[in-house]
């Protein structure tokens, strides 16, 4: 499949539009179904290009994005019926991933009418004929996909800011409550040699305290924003020896996920939890983990009631209320400022890959350039790799030097995880990770 085959010159596309459809199909069912359609001489439009993969569970979501980038007007993803998978469960994994991925694409402003999912078995040549005919006709009616990564001509409307608005009055400077207790605890831990280093907050940014007499450098106030769990994976920090780590309730969720993913062993660290009344960040408005739940010890108390679940998605609502092309336009405008400094990745406790996919260049999967294509690919990749894993600490958003509200992408996935699977990452340390597991009951009303 070369680009030339897919993309006709723009002028041609206007005059005589022939939809270009890319179908990602599994080797065992749909590919054979399509083959059967051919051998039984069933006629269907020649607009579909088939890309055969071993299994739907093996279809990288980047491929769907890539197909649109090189000019596809619609994409079809198709595999074996549930219970029919050649590898027993590949299609179940795929189904769960699509449920989440669809929500992300929606938030990013893709036109969902152009993305189709079906189960077609090796015996269903007729269904293949039907599906391809129907998708082709539907796409023909919709016309070419021109809004991809485009800023619409409509005047940019500032969205009503909801839920994420910072309180007009900053929190009164607090500090003091808990700060002494924290220092005392850390002094004791270091003096008794229970830990070799305390990873905590200093006056500005993180500090790494190795001597009991240095605990005065520890601070606890409304500027303790960072999620320090990110340091647990770093070699330089690991080299210092057994750590004690200072966490807020939100940060602590990251520990639960990291442990479940075998990235750390709670026996190897001491967790000092700080009851937190909120730091004045958007996430704090809907926080329901003001007091750490699994810490080895908790300092202070926070008398805060949890916000209603619906409150958590408020910031997302104003984005989702827009039509898809405008949602995409919003992101295209935001991503224009992205310089690809990867601060969002570096501060994320969940981004612990030794080498990020975006840094792989043999072959290059994601364009490294900070162009609209490269930026969309990167942000979709980053968000989806965190599906069912993001604990909502919003560090990515805090770290972004150009102020892109990456939180919204994470929220779309968190909402999907909660609504479809009643799952919140890092809330229950025993819960099976969302991606990597599946259920026979996963919904499939979007799959034909």
């Amino acid at each position: 499949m070369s680009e030339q085959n897919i993309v006709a010159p723009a002028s041609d596309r206007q005059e005589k539009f022939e939809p270009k459809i890319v179908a990602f199909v599994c080797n065992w069912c749909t590919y054979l179904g399509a083959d059967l359609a051919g051998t039984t001489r069933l006629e269907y439009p020649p607009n579909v290009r088939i890309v055969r993969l071993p299994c739907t569970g093996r279809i990288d979501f980047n491929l769907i994005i890539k197909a649109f980038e090189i000019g596809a007007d619609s994409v079809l993803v198709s595999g074996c019926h549930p219970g029919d998978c050649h590898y027993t469960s590949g299609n179940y994994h795929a189904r769960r991933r699509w449920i989440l991925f669809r929500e992300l694409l929606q938030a990013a402003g893709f036109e969902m009418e152009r993305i189709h999912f079906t189960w077609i078995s090796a015996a269903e040549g007729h269904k293949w004929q039907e599906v391809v005919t129907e998708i082709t006709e539907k796409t023909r009616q919709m016309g070419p996909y021109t809004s991809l990564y485009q800023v619409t001509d409509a005047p940019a409307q500032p969205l009503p800011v909801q839920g994420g608005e910072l309180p007009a009055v900053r929190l009164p400077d607090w500090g003091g409550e808990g700060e002494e207790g924290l220092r005392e605890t850390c002094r004791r831990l270091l003096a008794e040699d229970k830990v070799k280093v305390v990873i905590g907050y200093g006056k500005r940014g993180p500090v790494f305290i190795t001597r009991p007499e240095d605990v005065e450098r520890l601070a606890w106030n409304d500027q303790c924003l960072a999620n320090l769990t990110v340091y647990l994976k770093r070699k330089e920090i690991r080299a210092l020896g057994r750590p004690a780590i200072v966490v807020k309730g939100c940060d602590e969720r990251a520990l639960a996920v990291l442990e479940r993913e075998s990235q750390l062993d709670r026996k190897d660290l001491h967790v000092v939890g700080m009851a937190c009344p909120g730091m004045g960040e958007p996430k704090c408005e809907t926080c329901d983990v003001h007091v750490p739940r699994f810490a080895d010890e908790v300092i202070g108390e926070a008398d805060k009631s949890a916000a209603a679940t619906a409150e958590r998605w408020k910031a997302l609502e104003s984005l989702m209320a827009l039509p898809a092309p405008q949602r995409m336009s919003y992101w295209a405008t935001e991503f224009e400022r992205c310089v690809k400094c990867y601060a969002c990745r570096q501060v994320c406790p969940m981004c612990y890959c030794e080498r990020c996919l975006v840094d792989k260049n043999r072959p290059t999967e994601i364009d490294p350039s900070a162009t609209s294509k490269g930026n969309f690919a990167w942000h979709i990749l980053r968000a989806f790799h965190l599906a069912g894993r993001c604990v909502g600490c919003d560090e990515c958003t805090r770290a972004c030097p150009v102020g892109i509200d990456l939180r919204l992408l994470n929220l779309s996935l968190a909402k999907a995880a909660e609504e479809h699977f009643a799952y919140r990452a890092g809330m229950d340390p025993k819960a099976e990770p969302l991606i990597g597991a599946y259920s026979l009951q996963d919904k499939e009303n979007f799959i034909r």
Partner: protein
Amino acid sequence: MSATISQSALRELVGGWIAQGKRVVGPRLVVSGVGAVREPPLDRGNESRIFYAPLESSEQLALEGFIHPANSMKEFLFPKHEELYGYRITGKGIELSEVEPLRAEQVLIAARPCDAAALPILDQVFNWDYKDELYNTKRQLTSIVTLACAAHDEACFCTSVGLAPDAERGSDAMLFDLGGSEYEVRCLTEKGKALFDGKLEASERVAGLLPGPEKRFDAEQVRAFVKDNFDSPFWPAQTLACLGCGACAYTCPTCHCFDIVDEGNIERGVRARNWDSCQFSMFTLHASGHNPRPNQPARQRQRIDHKFRIYPEKFGEILCTGCGNCTRHCPEGIGVLSVLTAL
């Protein structure tokens, strides 16, 4: 005696430049719609949303109420992504196609003195062994009108690297806020004179001295220290918190490293250059797998070393203008300033 211009006349002038088809770039409030951007560790008010950006109308020009825009001016001469040439594979051969440098006149208005001063520094590295045509073309067509700083924050440290809130270096003309929506204009070069020709009024009002940030460190001492302390425990001790993103380098007016990539498919594509940062682990990674700067302390040392020793020894200039963007944007509060004040 001085020459002045009122704010309304200045905006009219800016509107005129835009109407002439010049690209006019200045500080501009970027409203991003959904949600809110966090308050950063350093109180910087709303300036995280002020960016140097192309102006579509003169009303968009922001002249006060912020310390430093979130980005730097360099991207209008040395963009984050720039195509060098295109290629097309034809049978057994390869066809190359030139990318024409943008030949539009450009005015950078209300630049901070620390951003303007960065340009003569960058000129050296882009004209050292190889004359960089893409950079030079844009540079020649660019005029810089600087607005002297009336305020600074605790991240600012221009006075520590030999600059000041009213430093003239790199500017074609300078504006000084006289209060009451009036600006004193000092035209420093022919380009500057041409921009304001016939638009200025004679006045008795002269800008007063501007208070600069306190001097925080001695650049010469820094140079001596980095020269003799390559393996000092100072580096790991001070830079443990660094997570290795490129926020410091990408908002820095003087950082100029780039990476060259080919992007395209089996038939055609472009060769382009993208910003790169010495803080990335990939920056010095050899094909063999060896990495001469294997950890973050080594990479932070390199950043300071390059800015305060290597560049001055080679070009006689400190590769830092004290704008403070690295400190403002570091998610973990590090930046050049905190490292050097610790030193």
